[in-house]
Structures are given as C-alpha cells and as structure tokens.
C-alpha cells in the first residue's frame, strides 16, 4: 500500500474529527485544549501532505512552515493553560459548563 495524498487527507480528517469531538464533548477545560491541539495537528498534517505531493517539492519549505506552526501552537497552548489556571484559581473549577458568565 503506497502512501497517497488521499490517504493522508483521510487520516488528517479523522484526526480533526476526533479533536473536534473531544473539544465539544469533554467538560474539562484541559481536555478541550487537547482537542484543539489535535485539530491543529490535523491541519499541520494536511499542510505537509500537500507539500509532499506537490509537483516539485523543495526540501525545507513545507517542513519549516509546519515546524513554525507547531511553535505557534505551543505558544497558544501556553496561553491556554495559563488561562485555565487563572480560571481555576478564580472559580475553583475547570468545568466549562459552570463557566457561563458570558450568558446573555
């Protein structure tokens, strides 16, 4: 079974759906963050796959951009975790169902 673009896209779509499912169904804030990270990973996978199967793939470009994206994701995760900690300290909970102060 040779790797094709379709296969990669299929895996990436699956990964994205799992991530989305996690982000939507879990009640714990950290799990939601993990779900979001998974969706991001799916997007990165997509990106690398498209690069690899482009007509003339130049060695560093696609990988570099993916690594760059991962670095940004790390920063974002740090911000997310900091938010979670701040929320926990304030509300003494990380259950997102209970955090409904934005209710209209």
């Amino acid at each position: 079974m040779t790797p094709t673009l379709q296969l990669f896209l299929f895996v990436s779509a699956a990964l994205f759906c799992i991530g989305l499912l996690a982000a939507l169904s879990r009640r714990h804030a950290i799990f939601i963050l993990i779900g979001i990270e998974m969706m991001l990973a799916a997007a990165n996978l997509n990106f690398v796959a498209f690069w690899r199967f482009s007509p003339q793939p130049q060695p560093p470009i696609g990988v570099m951009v993916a690594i760059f994206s991962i670095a940004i994701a790390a920063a974002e995760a740090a911000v997310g975790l900091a938010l979670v900690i701040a929320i926990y300290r304030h509300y003494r909970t990380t259950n997102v169902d209970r955090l409904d102060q934005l209710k209209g």
Partner: protein
Amino acid sequence: MSWIVTSLWLIPAAPLAASLIILSLANSRRSAAAALAIIGQIAALTLSILAFLPTLQAPGYRSVHNFTWFTFGEQALRIGWVLDSLAAAMLVMIALVGLCIFVFSAGYMADDKNLTRFFAYLSFFSGAMLGVVIANSLLLLFVFWELVGLASYLLIGFWIHKPSAAAAAKKAFITTRIGDLGFFVGILWLYGGSGTLLFYDGGKGCLETAGLLGLGASATFVALLIFCGAVGKSGQFPLHIWLPDAMEGPTPVSALVHAATMVAAGVFLVARVYPLFSFGAIDGVTPSLVVVVSIGTITALMASLIALGQFDIKRILAYSTVSQLGLMMVSLGVGGVAAGMMHLIAHGFFKALLFLGAGSVIHGCHHEQDIRKMGGLRSLMPISFLTYAIGMMTLSGVPFFFSGGWTKEEILHATAHWHASHIPHYLMLAGVVLTALYMTRQMIYIFFGNRRAASENVHESPPIMTLPLIVLAICSIAFSVVLTPAWRWLHSYLTGEPAHFDIALLVQPMLFVSLALVAVGIGLGFVMYGKAGQLATGRVRPTGGQNRHRTAEMDPLERAQPALFHFLENKMWLDEIYDRTVVAWSRMAAHVSDWMDRHFWDGLVRGFAGLGQLFGIFSANFDERWINVRVDETMTGTRRLGRVMSAWHSGQIQTYLGMLAVGMLALLILYAWLA
C-alpha cells in the same frame, strides 16, 4: 545736502518724541517737562534752519523723498516729504514762533497743576503742524492735519473743568470735522482721478502736469472739496465760529492756534495744492479761485466788523485772525500765492506777539479778560505795552517799519491786478481801515486812559514772558527787510525767481494809499474811543469794589448806533442762526432717528423675534409629539430584539464551538455543492 531731505521727518519727530517722553513723566516733574518741550522745539528749529539752507542755493529749489508705505493688491500707496521754499519758510516760522510760545508758556502756566500734560500737548501740536508742512502726499498731510485737529481739541479743552472750555473744544473739533469731511471726499476723488496722492513725484505727482491732465475738468471740484478742509481749519466764513470760542484755552494755546499752527494749516494747504486751483485758468481766474476769493472777502470784512463790537481782549484778536486769514485767502485766490504766504508768515510772528502780549496783560490783571475793566496799563507794564504796540501797528499795516504793512501792500497789489473783479480790492481797502480802527480801540481800552478795576496791583510779567515778546517784536520789525518792494527777497524765494535790489521800487503808489488808509483807521479810532476812555476813567474811582458793575459802560459805537453795535457784539447772531438752523436740524434729525430707532426698527426687530419664538414653539411641539415618539418606538423595538438575541447566548463556549463547527460544515457543503 541730500541727507536733510531724506531725514526731513526728524523735524516733526523731535517735538513728537518730546511729547511722548513728557507724557511718561510724573505730574510733578514740571521743570523737566518744560525743558524737554523747549529742547524738542529747539531741535526742530535747528533742523528747520538746516533744511532752509539748501533751498537758498538755487531759485525754485525742490527736493522730494518718496517711499512706499504699504501695498494693497497691485497698487502701492506711496508717501513722502518735500523740501521746497514754501515748506522751508513755513518750517522756520513755525519752529521759531513755537519756540517763543513754549518759553512764554513756561512762565504763563507756571502755576497750573497740569503743567506736564500741557507741555506734552503743546509739543504734540507743534510736531503735527511741522508734519503738515513737510508732507509730500495728500494722505500724509491729512494724517497730520487730523493730528493738528486732535491737538487743538486737547489744548482748547485743557481746562476741562470749565464747561465752556469743554464746549469750545467740542465745537472746534466738530466744526473743523465738517470741513474735513469735504477734504476727505476731495482726497478720494483726487486719488480716483489721478491715481496718486503724491504732490511731486518726478513728473507723475498729482500737482504736476500729468496728474492734472488726468483729473481734467474735475480738478475744480477736487479743489473746492479740499478748500472745504481749509475753510474749516482756517476759520473761513461759514465755519469760522469755532475760532473765537477757541479762546477758552490757555492764552499760549490761543497764540499757537492763531499764529503758528492750526489756522495756518488751511492757508498753507491751499498754497500747497495751488496747481489744482489754478488748473485751466484763463487770465488767472478759475471757478474755484473765485470761490476762494469770495469766501475770503466775506470772512475778512465780517470778522473785522465783529471785532469792533467785542470786549474780550482775546476775542478781538481772534476775530482779527479770522479777518487776516480771509485776507490771505483773497490773496491766494487772486493769484498772489507768494503774497499770501508772506502775510501768513508775517502774521505768524505778529499774531503770536499780540496773543502773548494779551497773555501777559491777562496774567498781570489776575486773569481778567474784559478790556473795559483794564485801562492805563501803559506805565504799569511798559514792556508789554511797547511790544503790544509794535504788534498792533504791524497788524494794522503801518508801512515802512512793520512787516505786516509790506505784506498787506503786496496783497493789495495782487487784488488790484485781478481780472475778474475789482470789488475784492476795494473791500480789502475797507478792511485795512477797519483793522486799524479796532486795534486802536483795543489799545486805548487797555493801555490808555485811567486805571480801572482790573488795573489794581498790576505788575509787569517776569522776564521769561517778556523775553519772547521782545524776540517776536524784533522779528516783526526785522522781517520787513526781506519784504520790501525794493528787495522782494521772500517773494522771489517763494516764487522761485532770483531777487533784485532796486531802491527806486521802494516807494509805490500803493504805499501812500495804505498809509492814508491806516492813518484814517487809527485817527478814527482816536476820535471815537480816545474820548470814551477818558470819560470812562473819569467816572470810575480807582478804589473800592463797587466799580466792578460800573464797568458796563457804553461803548461809543453803542451810544451812536445801538442796533448795529448789538448786531456786532452778538457776532452777527451767526451762532444763534446756526443754533436755530444747523444745530436744530441735526438735533431734530437725532430725535427722528431716535424715534425711528425706538419704534420702527425696534418694532421690526421685535416682530422678527416673535416670528422666531413662534417657530421655536412649533418646532418644540413637533419634536416632542412626532420625533420623540418615533424615537421611543424604535428604542422599544431594538430592546425587544436585543432580548431575543441575548437568549441565544448561553455562555457555554462548547455550544459556540459546536455552532462554529456546524457553520464550517455548512460552508463546506455549500462549496462542494456549488463546485
């Protein structure tokens, strides 16, 4: 010597600067103020003499310095100053006479508590007049002209606590302003016609051929309008009424107004713009010159008649000034510009002398001005008497020794050769008799006869006052050297011809005519009043207070012709006529405008205000009943919508995320379906 032309402005600037410095002094720095004023005047005199010297070099010397004052649009307004024989002669006369008056004032006003203010105004007055003389632009001349008017207002009303002084100052200012209105319109017309207000500008000035041709026939009207200004300033017939009232000011001010500054300005103005008057002359006669002669003749005769009926020492002199100015106007009008200016300059000396003499007499008589209360001052005030007599004889036109005689003779010559009419000539001859008559009357009342009420405890004035008198008296006599027909130096100097000396010309037929006329005048005076003075003194005892009311004795003329005398005593009722007519009309016009203002214009304004209020009420109602309701409805709707929308916001971020996902999915499906 061109530096003096470019720095000619220093001459008026010196007294003006002195005036400013004096104004900044404390009121107690009295001697400093007097000294500063005199120093400023000496500086002006020195510079004037320096300016006078180059004009001697060549006959008809004229040098101008013009520059641009400011530019508006494409046109540049240019002003400048001119140095010619006319200006130079006037400069020296004004500065010299002014200096004498300044020195005299230091003595006369020594007791006044506002001495510093007085000297500041005096310097200002002198500076403004010097500015009039050097101006080479009608606009610049007008500026200084108005400054002269302002200064005269300040000085006539110097004793502002006296209601009569305040009224006289106001009268002088307003009356001259009427003339100045015409003058100003004339300036505008001249500028419109010739495009320049410079007198001499290398052939392009408004008094030179090009400018005059540009004006054409309207030169007559321009000349007459400018003459209006001269009529106001020089106290000519319809507007002369302010001049006798100007006697309310301190006596040195009267001297300055009547001799060196103010009134000389009008005659000088006519002489300065003479080409406008004489433009297009046939045999030396133009319509505008005929007007000048007529006004001058009326003024000269009327004023010398009125002088016969006055009892105030200064008023008599005031009317004599009016009549002499009329004489000068006649002279200018008949073409004797040089003769008129010569008389103006001579008049400057002897009229200053007479006024300062009168000031000395008033000072000696403890500020009494009624000549009926004086008398017999001859031996008490010998210097004043002698100098006053010299002034009187100069004014009367006694020939040979006194400058006034020669200049008057010159004027009579000019009138005799006028082509239009001989009436002015004969009327002027009558004027000579009248002048001699009223001056004799005044002399007899003041200096002859026995002593009357005000003559008690009279003392001669201090040297600071008599010295200017002596200087002016010497000037009045010595000045005649350059006036005689044998050596008409001043005449030639003013007309720009070389002077000749010819002793044979000294004795002219006119000399005997004027000698005879003056003799008639003085003789008549002695016959009429000599006896009156004796009678009066016989009746009044020299002591006691009861004789004060006895001084209202009858004047000989009053006894002979009561009606005529009252007519003259009341100044021909001209003030009353003006009161009934011009003043009453303007007062009526003021009342009418007041009524219009209160009832008509006010009503109109109130009507508009009511309309505005109505509109306001209407728009307020519209606002509340219509716009407010609509706005409220919109607000209710928006609030309701907001409530519905806010129900969708659960605050659950996972719901939001789910919606986001559903939205994405919907977009994807839409994209796939469209592709």
